[in-house]
């Protein structure tokens, strides 16, 4: 029997590796980056590592796209990982995010005189973690991906070692993150006990709807759900978000505000929608509660904020609530809507943070409302882009924000969760108030005249985000098709 287990053919190995090709390639570049960092002289390190990082992201992005177009997605490593469209979709998303992050963070680190190389390496590790999460089809891999991503981000949050805020953020994030992952883990253990395996598809096939009587599974859902909700920073497990976002250096905030969310949603969809379809009523009830609280809490708390980082943190909490509606609704439309929302939300939210990044000074971030004053004159392009991002977050057509909401809410109403949708819309009236509040300093007359220095790479990244958050809204069809294909593996075509 052992012999049988040990047989692992070369072709099999290639096939397996192929399925996780984007992850593998990125990991390769990750190791190469470490080596570069070690061998090159200090002053040349930063750029070199940045190059490597961008190359890695681009390569794995390319691989993912290639596999999407030409390769047959399937399970690998005894169904511990997969290369299906869902995984590829998220790999593309994270690859793009990685490139954007490097483009924005590199000048920032330069200005603040920090070591670029380690930063990029950590972000790469986090991206790998996210990709693993996207491709994971086993509770074990899910957990490992989660931890990989988290640990990288713990360090990244504390990256500005001279700032007490940064350290505080790192500590809070680490402690509460560990606490949450203990919950997730316990849940996984119980589910494993109930299903006798950690492989998600097998769990799905083993657990019938009768399992809703099994305490192990139910408790597992609760504990995992709690942990997942923590990761998507949904209320009432959101409390860490504003502090961590505020303390972390802005590029990290920008990165995690969209990356972690997307990865966590991928995880939720995999485990719940993919692994426990027969217990949908239970986890839907749980998520509905979480979604409702997040929308209310997030939008209300955002009103009184004076720090853009915190404001965007709370807005992120609210947005998580909206997206959860799509997850709850489920089905091809619901999940497609979620994927669409996540992909566009990446551009919008990242762009917003990126604009704030441009304001940063050598001695620290500048993220208060008054730092935006006169942006309309200091950098008209930035001002226009910021306007686009805010309006998109507020959900004004024709920006992507509106269509994301439209799709998600349509799915929600179709699935009979009208009360959630109504709540969401009522709260988004509130949200408009604070999103528009951000624009007031941007456009109102001010005496400040100091130009905002926008290096090319960052400018390109922000502009790309801006264009995307308009173009993908004016013509959302293609992306929506892709999202549907991406959701297929979960919902079945």
């Amino acid at each position, binding site marked *: 029997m*052992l012999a049988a*287990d*040990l047989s*692992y053919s070369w072709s099999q190995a290639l096939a*397996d590796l192929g399925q*996780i090709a984007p992850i593998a390639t990125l*990991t390769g570049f*990750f190791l190469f980056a*470490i080596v570069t960092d070690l061998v090159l002289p200090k002053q040349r390190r930063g750029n070199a590592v940045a190059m490597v990082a961008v190359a890695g992201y681009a390569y794995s992005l390319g691989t993912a796209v290639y596999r999407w177009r030409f390769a047959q997605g399937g399970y*690998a*490593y*005894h169904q*511990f*990982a997969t290369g299906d469209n869902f995984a590829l979709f998220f790999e593309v998303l994270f690859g793009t995010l990685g490139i954007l992050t490097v483009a924005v963070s590199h000048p920032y680190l330069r200005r603040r*005189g*920090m*070591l670029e190389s*380690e930063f990029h*390496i*950590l972000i790469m*590790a986090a991206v*790998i973690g996210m990709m*693993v999460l996207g491709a994971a089809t*086993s509770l*074990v*891999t899910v957990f*490992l*991906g989660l*931890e*990989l991503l988290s*640990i*990288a981000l*713990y*360090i990244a949050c*504390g*990256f500005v*070692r001279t700032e007490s805020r940064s350290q505080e953020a790192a500590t809070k994030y680490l402690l509460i993150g560990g606490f949450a992952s203990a919950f997730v883990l316990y849940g996984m253990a119980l589910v494993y*006990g*109930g*299903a*006798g395996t950690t492989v998600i598809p097998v769990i799905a096939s083993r657990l019938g709807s009768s399992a809703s*009587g*099994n*305490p*192990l599974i*139910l*408790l597992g859902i609760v504990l995992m759900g709690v942990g997942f909700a923590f990761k998507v920073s949904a209320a009432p497990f959101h409390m860490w978000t504003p502090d961590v976002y505020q303390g972390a250096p802005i590029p990290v905030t920008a990165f995690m505000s969209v990356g972690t969310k997307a990865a966590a949603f991928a995880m939720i969809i995999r485990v719940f929608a993919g692994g426990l379809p027969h217990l949908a009523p239970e986890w839907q009830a749980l998520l509905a509660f979480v979604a409702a609280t997040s929308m209310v809490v997030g939008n209300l708390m955002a009103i009184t904020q004076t720090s853009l980082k915190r404001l965007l943190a709370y807005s992120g909490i609210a947005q998580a609530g909206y997206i959860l509606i799509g997850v709850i609704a489920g089905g091809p439309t619901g999940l497609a809507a979620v994927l669409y929302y996540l992909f566009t939300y990446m551009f919008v939210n990242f762009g917003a943070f990126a604009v704030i990044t441009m304001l940063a000074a050598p001695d620290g971030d500048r993220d208060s409302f008054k730092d935006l004053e006169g942006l309309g004159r200091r950098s008209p392009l930035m001002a226009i882009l910021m306007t686009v991002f805010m309006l998109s977050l507020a959900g004004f057509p024709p920006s992507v924000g509106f269509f994301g909401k439209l799709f998600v809410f349509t799915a929600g109403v179709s699935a009979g969760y009208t009360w959630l949708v109504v709540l969401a819309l009522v709260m988004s009236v509130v949200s408009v108030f604070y999103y528009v509040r951000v624009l007031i300093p941007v456009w109102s007359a001010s005496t400040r005249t100091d130009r905002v220095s926008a290096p090319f790479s960052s400018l390109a990244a922000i502009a790309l985000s801006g264009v995307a958050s308009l173009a993908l809204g004016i013509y959302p069809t293609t992306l929506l098709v892709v999202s549907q294909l991406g959701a297929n593996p979960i919902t079945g075509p």
Partner: protein
Amino acid sequence: MALVVFFVAAALALAGAVGVVAFREPIRSVLSLVVVMLGLSVLFLLLSAQFVFVVQIIVYAGAVMVLFLFVIALMGPAREMARTKLRFQAWLSALFVVVLAGLIWAMLQGVQYRQPDKTDLSIFGTVQSIGVGLFTTYLYPFELTSILLLVAAIGAIYLSRKTIDDL
């Protein structure tokens, strides 16, 4: 016989756990965690997880806890003061935890266990079987853990540098 062992070990673990929370000095908490681990390792043995038992003692109780001890030594014996700014914290936490524990307890009562898949327990949990599992089915997770550790190492190095300039 095994029953006795179980109860002793369990009692040990519980005592240790209580100690972790109860002691004021961090160092004692660490030591009591070691106690917990030892107790658990015995239970692992009962559950025919010999390899895990070894790892638990050597790596966990050995290495990791020692690391903690080093850090505490580095920081000096910080005693936790009784005063706290947060009123109600203790009471509320007690309440919540009791409720949560109650819920968990209540749920674990009516557990329906799966039928065990038939494997011969003679080699169950031995180094051999663990190894096979680790390098066939768990190959992918195993590799992932390596990256994880690498990242942790990098992070630790970065964070524990004296200043930006060295290295």
